[in-house]
């Protein structure tokens, strides 16, 4: 007989294995539960449990998505075991420049960082760190709320 599935543990397993943050809809699909509210309740319980444990691991919420994370100072001590940062070096440099010069034109970024900017910009948009608004023949680039939540910063 198949073991009874504990949905909270299933959500915990999914968050543990997933390489990126999972939204409530993703977790509904994984658990097969239709009740959005119930899944959200289970995630909130998990978040609270990890917070109460006060261990090295925590579940954080970024842009309405959840992921496992490590608390400092433990994260920086074990970062060498990770497969790599979740933002590429070139993309991070552009993201940093955009955070300093919010609403910068994409054409200016291309002039400064070269043709590879288009590729990095695609990555940053896909990951939800920046948004583009068409202006004339170029685009105006600004950071998103996800960026602010991820780095826990305000933007100039």
């Amino acid at each position, binding site marked *: 007989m198949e073991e009874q599935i504990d949905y909270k543990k299933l959500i915990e397993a999914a968050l543990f294995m997933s*390489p990126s943050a999972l939204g409530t809809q993703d977790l509904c699909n994984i658990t097969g539960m239709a009740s959005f509210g119930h899944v959200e309740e289970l995630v909130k319980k998990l978040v609270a449990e990890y917070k109460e444990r006060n261990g090295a691991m925590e579940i954080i919420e970024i842009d309405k998505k959840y992921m496992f994370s490590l608390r400092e100072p433990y994260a920086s001590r074990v970062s060498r075991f990770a497969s790599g*940062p*979740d933002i590429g070096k070139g993309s*991070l*440099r*552009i*993201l*940093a*420049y955009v955070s300093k010069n919010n609403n910068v034109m994409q054409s200016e970024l291309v002039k*400064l960082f070269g043709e590879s900017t288009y590729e990095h910009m695609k990555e940053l948009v896909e990951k939800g760190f920046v948004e583009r608004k068409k202006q004339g023949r170029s685009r105006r680039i600004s950071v998103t709320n996800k960026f602010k939540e991820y780095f826990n910063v305000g933007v100039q």
Partner: protein
Amino acid sequence: MRETATSMVSVNRFDIESFVKEATWKDILVDLVKKNELNPWEIDIIDIVGKYVDVVKRMKVLDLRVPANIILASAILLRLKSDMLELEERVVDESAAAENSTRPYIPVDGLSMRLRLPPKRRVSLNELIGALEDAMKLKEYREEKIASDARIVPMIFTRVDVEAEVETVYSLVQKNLDASKMVTFSALCSIAKRDDTLLDVFIPLLFLANKNRILLIQEAFFGEIVIALN
């Protein structure tokens, strides 16, 4: 036709080359195997490949139908061979085997996979600041480069009075003519004592020759130039 094909099989060596010439050879081949009249395991496919190569070599008119049928027949035979293989694993009673063995029987749990992919780590704020410093350095470098590329480089030209130069060289030629009213270019250069003697003497000479005031004679390439007054 059927009898012919069967007779080819009954002989010890299976003559595939003659066999595939029959129109219905494919059906006959499968039928023979099914009726146990032909055992695919007794046919050496390497030998058939050798025959195929021989047939192609012997061919005077290019008709690939027969050799191609040999390949197809080999493939069918290979398939029949593989179908005959026993794919089920033999079940061995481990405990019974253990009793007969001198080694003690130790039951071992089956292996299970432990799933844990190394996750991507989050980028820290310090890394973001470091990236910003990189970006600002790059910006500074680009701006400096643009500024340096756009700077005006002064070009200094010295004005030269070509006519005066020509006249100076002409008087030099006149003064150094030998008894036959000629002077060599090398002699003129050694007397002239200019900064860039060759060009400073040679170019005015070309002007003078162009105006038909002198005659330049060079009998061999890169040889001595003889200057004579016109």
